[in-house]
């Protein structure tokens, strides 16, 4: 038995598979569409969400017996927004370059429905440690899908991975391009993120038939 009990481990592992926030709960789709045209942006977003969800879930869990239920959604929003702004300001002062790269993600993190969803569904009713694990688990589940989608969209759309040309040079026609391969510009457009997510959902449900709802 390792560091985590079986139940705690399920908090981290379930969102990666049978309870994935994107493919099963279908949350956080908007940011999955918006920023997955490149692998790097997907990774940055995944890391940011892991941080915000871990800390946010801790804060909400600590406050869970004090938050008035009538305004709990507003309180949750304030917590996420404050966290994100604090991080943004500190980065602007001490790591300006990094903050410039992250600036576009700030708005997307605040409005990420997975974060609000986990605050509401889990952190409000569970202890601090379990809430922290749940936050990390769900953020990882989200991040994994983001990175898979980002990988395929960048590879097929631009022929690059993390900005490095892996299929040859499309301008001077080397590598794959020399035999007539072309980048698929469609992959860079948002709808293709949905189709890639759809394919992931299809594969996941084919492999785990118990996820398919009865009609």
């Amino acid at each position: 038995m390792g560091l985590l009990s079986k139940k705690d481990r399920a908090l981290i592992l379930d969102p990666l598979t049978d309870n994935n926030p994107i493919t099963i709960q279908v949350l956080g789709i908007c940011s999955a569409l918006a920023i997955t045209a490149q692998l790097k942006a997907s990774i940055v977003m995944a890391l940011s969400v892991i941080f915000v969800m871990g800390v946010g879930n801790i804060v909400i869990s600590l406050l869970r017996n004090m938050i008035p239920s009538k305004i709990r959604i507003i309180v949750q929003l304030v917590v996420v927004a404050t966290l994100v702004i604090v991080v943004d300001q500190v980065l602007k002062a001490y790591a300006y370059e990094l903050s410039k790269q992250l600036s576009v993600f700030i708005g997307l993190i605040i409005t990420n429905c997975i974060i609000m969803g986990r605050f509401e569904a889990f952190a409000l009713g569970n202890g601090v440690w379990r809430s922290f694990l749940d936050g990390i688990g769900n953020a990882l589940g989200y991040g994994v899908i983001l990175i898979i989608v980002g990988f395929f969209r960048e590879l097929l759309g631009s022929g690059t991975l993390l900005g490095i040309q892996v299929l040859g040079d499309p301008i001077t026609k080397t590598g794959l391009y020399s035999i007539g391969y072309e980048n698929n510009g469609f992959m860079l457009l948002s709808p293709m993120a949905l189709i890639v997510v759809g394919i992931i959902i299809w594969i996941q449900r084919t492999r785990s038939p118990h996820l398919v709802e009865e009609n």
Partner: protein
Amino acid sequence: MAKKTDNNLYTLFFAIVMVVVVGSLLAFLASTLKPRIVENQRFEKQQNILYAMGIHNNEGDNDVQFISTEKVGEVFESYISNQYYIQDGEMIEDDEAYLIDLAREEALTRNPDYKKRLPLFIGEKDGETYYIVPVLGKGLWDAIWGFVAIGEDLVVKGVYFDHKAETPGLGANIKERFFMDKFSGEHIFDEEGEFAGITVAKGNNDPANNRKQDNKVDAIAGSTITGDGVTAMLRNYLRTYLPYIQSLNQ
């Protein structure tokens, strides 16, 4: 029995405390960090102006590496020989013209009595004179801006673009090397010698931008509106600045 947290008075109390705590936390943070943030922004501006002139620490083909913040003040002074701002048709020399915030100047023009100040920088590199002008426009989501360096031959020598919130991987790519590099050497006058600006064009079919005289560079797939914003801001500002650059260039 109702929970204590359902009480209206408690709810109000909680809301007030929350607003006060969060508000003072953010206000405290903002005021303590402000000097550092302002300084970082000053360095950034110097770095961006130098970048447009082609003074940077780029190594690989895809890097955008500025002069380091420790050195940038010194380097800026050694390359930028004169700084002006243009106000009401006059050019006024000002050593701190680079601190003028173009977005603020544009916003102030809503007051009809205000005469906006437009900064213009003159740089010297390898015996050549560069005229560097700021540009500002709208992308898809928010502001886009940058600096354009024009040479003595009135051809673009280099650009630097930045944006507030363009889509990562699409419009946000205007600040990537592959896009900015294409502007170097591009002509802003058409074949008849008329001012044409530079159009970010779809279907230009010239990805390496070998045709420098066509006033066009290839657009980024999936970011039409950001590209159109770049076209518009270049056209607006270059047209405004051109008479001053031509008079300085004589």
